[in-house]
């Protein structure tokens, strides 16, 4: 950080330069920066969540940051949900019904059948570009309908990526809100579901939505 050459009056300002040019002591800078790291780590980005221990699909945690809903987990205990959230977002995590109130209310309405679609900002920054493509394709499947993994793969222009599509949906950070449960195996089987009670939860959601898939409940027992 050297002073600017060519300014007028530099000679007469040598005392001012002497007082200002060298800047703060290196140790002050280091101390202020170290403190800043601590301050930002404590403050950091914030994620807020709320937790429903008794929803129709069991335990549900919902988390949002200032951009939108960032995570929904079915079946995890509150402690596990929070730990997972911290690990994935590396943010400060706080329970706050206020911050996720809208999402929770819409979810409860949806699961009770009083609501048919979600109207929420979502944040997919925890996902890869490919996964985002898949999730957005799943988001476009209308309620009451289903698609196969292969159809979704074709839809995003990667017809051979059905398996990768399955993987991407398996890591859907916002199940229910992004209806990955509407994606089935090519033979109409439910194939897989990682949230809650697995396939039983997937079947329950499809039934709630009135999806027409005759072999839907084949082989599902509780």
């Amino acid at each position, binding site marked *: 950080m050297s002073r600017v050459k060519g300014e007028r009056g530099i000679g007469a300002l040598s005392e001012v330069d*002497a007082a200002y040019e060298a*800047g703060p*002591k290196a140790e002050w800078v280091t101390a202020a920066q170290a403190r800043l790291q601590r301050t930002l780590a404590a403050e950091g980005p914030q994620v807020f969540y709320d937790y429903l221990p008794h929803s129709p699909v069991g335990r549900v945690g919902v988390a949002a940051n200032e951009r939108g809903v960032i995570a929904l987990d079915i079946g995890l205990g509150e402690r596990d949900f929070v730990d997972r959230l911290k690990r994935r977002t590396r943010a400060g995590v706080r329970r706050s019904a206020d911050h996720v109130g809208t999402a929770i209310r819409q979810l409860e309405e949806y699961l009770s059948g009083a609501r048919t679609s979600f109207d929420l900002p979502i944040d997919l920054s925890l996902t890869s570009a490919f996964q985002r493509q898949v999730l957005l394709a799943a988001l476009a499947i209308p309620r009451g309908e289903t698609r196969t993994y292969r159809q979704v793969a074709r839809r995003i222009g990667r017809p051979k990526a059905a398996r990768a599509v399955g993987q991407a949906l398996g890591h859907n950070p916002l199940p229910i809100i992004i209806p990955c449960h509407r994606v089935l195996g090519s033979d109409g089987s439910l194939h897989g579901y990682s949230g809650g009670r697995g396939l039983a939860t997937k079947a329950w959601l499809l039934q709630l939505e009135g999806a027409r898939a005759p072999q839907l409940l084949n082989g599902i027992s509780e």
Partner: protein
Amino acid sequence: METRSVTDAAFEVLVERYSAEIYAYLWRLLRDPEQASDCLQDTYLRALRAFPRLRHRDHLRAWLYTIATHRARTLQREAARRSRRQEDLKDEIADPRPSVAKRVADREMLRRVLQAVDRLPEKQKQALILRRYQGLGYAEIAAVQGGSPAAARTNVHLAQERLKNWLQAEGAESRTPRRRSGA
């Protein structure tokens, strides 16, 4: 699934790249290591909160300077309301160059310089420090202060002229006997 959010990574770059420079600026404005540190925390916390909503990310350096300038001004006004502490100047100079150090070894001179700089109108003081010691261009200073580049140039010029006049006037009174005693 350990993907880091885009915002975090981009903000970390701001911390790494500019925090030392912003601290130096705050120290020059405030001339107090602790206050400058307080202000640095405040500046970056505000920046962190505003960052996700920031639309244009082309002028992040000037943006940080703007926040820092506001924070320093607020802090100074609060401090001024409580008390005026200009007396304690120990450890105020950090490793000045030896040749120049001789000229300001006298704490009286340093005190006069700091007081003179503080007497400048706020915008002139900021513009002078931004241009002369922080290396910002006039367009950047204009972005920080919210004026035109021409106004920034004028402010720097006026600040330098005023300081020159004040310090020469004072120096004429006090410099001669001191020099003799030091020789």
